[in-house]
């Protein structure tokens, strides 16, 4: 239950961090809030040779509304900071509601929004929220920056579309269109646990985005609750059977869509 030895770097700039991550001779991992990585290191499921801690990089510490009205979340912003921001609660109520289900207060005070996205536990709330809200993830690497749509970012269990030497620097959540409604539902053994199954739903005038998570190797974006039963590929484990998860996913999807439509004004 103690991590193996590693080299520790706490660079002051993003450029230095990218230089460290770009060294192919060393297997480095980014350390942001550490709420997923450190448990994995304590169990020695992760044994990185070096950690690049973001804690001194001030340029990654922001939570702001961009010129196009999108919410821009820098890689150092914690889940607790996001929950405390009244602009997020007012403008992105789905995001706010979903993040209250992420772990416990002691986890959210360290855990970062971008870290949850990069870690991609398919039972986690933030990947599903990013997909439902049509977020884009900005990554930086040796060849500069690129933006990846949430649809293309989450690949499989704990796997995302990051290339070697790249790191997530920002998540951008577009402002939900006027007249849209939302719903967030999950079933977990205890509040704060990872969801057995959950649903995040955004109903906008032009588009319905229904996301089922915890039911496949990545969150699934669907257009209609009728597609859920055939689309999910749930796990069968000691927490719940696959058939139970399938039924819950279908039920939650129907409830969430109805609630989101009601909030949108019918």
């Amino acid at each position, binding site marked *: 239950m*103690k991590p193996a030895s590693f080299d520790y770097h706490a660079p002051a700039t993003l450029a230095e961090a990218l230089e460290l991550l770009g060294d192919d001779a060393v297997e480095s991992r980014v350390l942001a809030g550490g709420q997923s990585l*450190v448990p994995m290191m304590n169990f020695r499921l992760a044994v990185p040779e070096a950690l690049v801690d973001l804690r001194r990089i001030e340029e990654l510490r922001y939570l702001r509304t961009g010129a196009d009205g999108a919410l821009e979340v820098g890689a150092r912003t914690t889940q607790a900071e996001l929950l405390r921001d009244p602009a997020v609660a007012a403008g992105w109520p789905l995001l706010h509601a979903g993040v209250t289900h992420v772990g416990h207060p*002691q986890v959210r005070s360290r855990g970062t929004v971008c870290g949850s996205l990069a870690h991609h536990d398919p039972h986690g709330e933030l990947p599903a929220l990013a997909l439902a809200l049509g977020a884009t993830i900005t990554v930086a690497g040796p060849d500069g920056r690129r933006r990846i749509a949430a649809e293309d970012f989450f690949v499989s269990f704990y796997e995302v579309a990051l290339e070697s030497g790249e790191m997530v620097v920002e998540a951008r959540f577009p402002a939900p269109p006027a007249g849209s409604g939302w719903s967030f539902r999950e079933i977990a053994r205890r509040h704060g646990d990872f969801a057995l199954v959950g649903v995040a739903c955004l109903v906008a005038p032009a588009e319905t985005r229904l996301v089922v998570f915890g039911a496949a190797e990545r969150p699934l974006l669907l257009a209609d609750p009728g597609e859920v039963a055939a689309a999910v590929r749930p796990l069968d484990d000691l927490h719940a059977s696959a058939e139970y998860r399938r039924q819950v996913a279908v039920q939650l999807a129907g409830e969430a869509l109805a609630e989101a439509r009601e909030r949108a004004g019918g």
Partner: protein
Amino acid sequence: MADPGGEREVRLVVNGVERVAAAEPRLLLSDFLRHRLGLTGTHVGCEHGVCGACTVLLDGEPVRSCLVFAVQAEGAELRTVEGLAGEDGELGPVQRAFHEAHGMQCGFCTPGFLISLTALLEERPGASEEELVDALSGNLCRCTGYANILAAARAARDQAAERA
């Protein structure tokens, strides 16, 4: 540059006192507090961020000290259970409420509960029932003595609300 994997000095403020001790990067903050600084009031239960026994306040926020490396706390301000009592050893208000309502059985989880509740009541002295439960949901009691823990937490909240 110094050896990035070797021991280095970690300087931080714990319960108002500046402390300096050596830590290699892999040393968890929980072990740093207990073994390097001798502050054994912070308990270590699961060491993977589930039980909450090792909760401390880091720059005012409750965190699991088993999920933070000591080197990450360089320059930080920490409060541990040892910092809750007055200088004369008199129990702090949250500790007193736990004592009076017997909000413990074996006592192993108590430091974590005290710290989590202190964090909540300093931010929200009149916390609602829902907020109380949410703030304590990340702490496990292996004796399952939750009824008295919640009774103590409510008493501490009522006293905090009166003082506010």
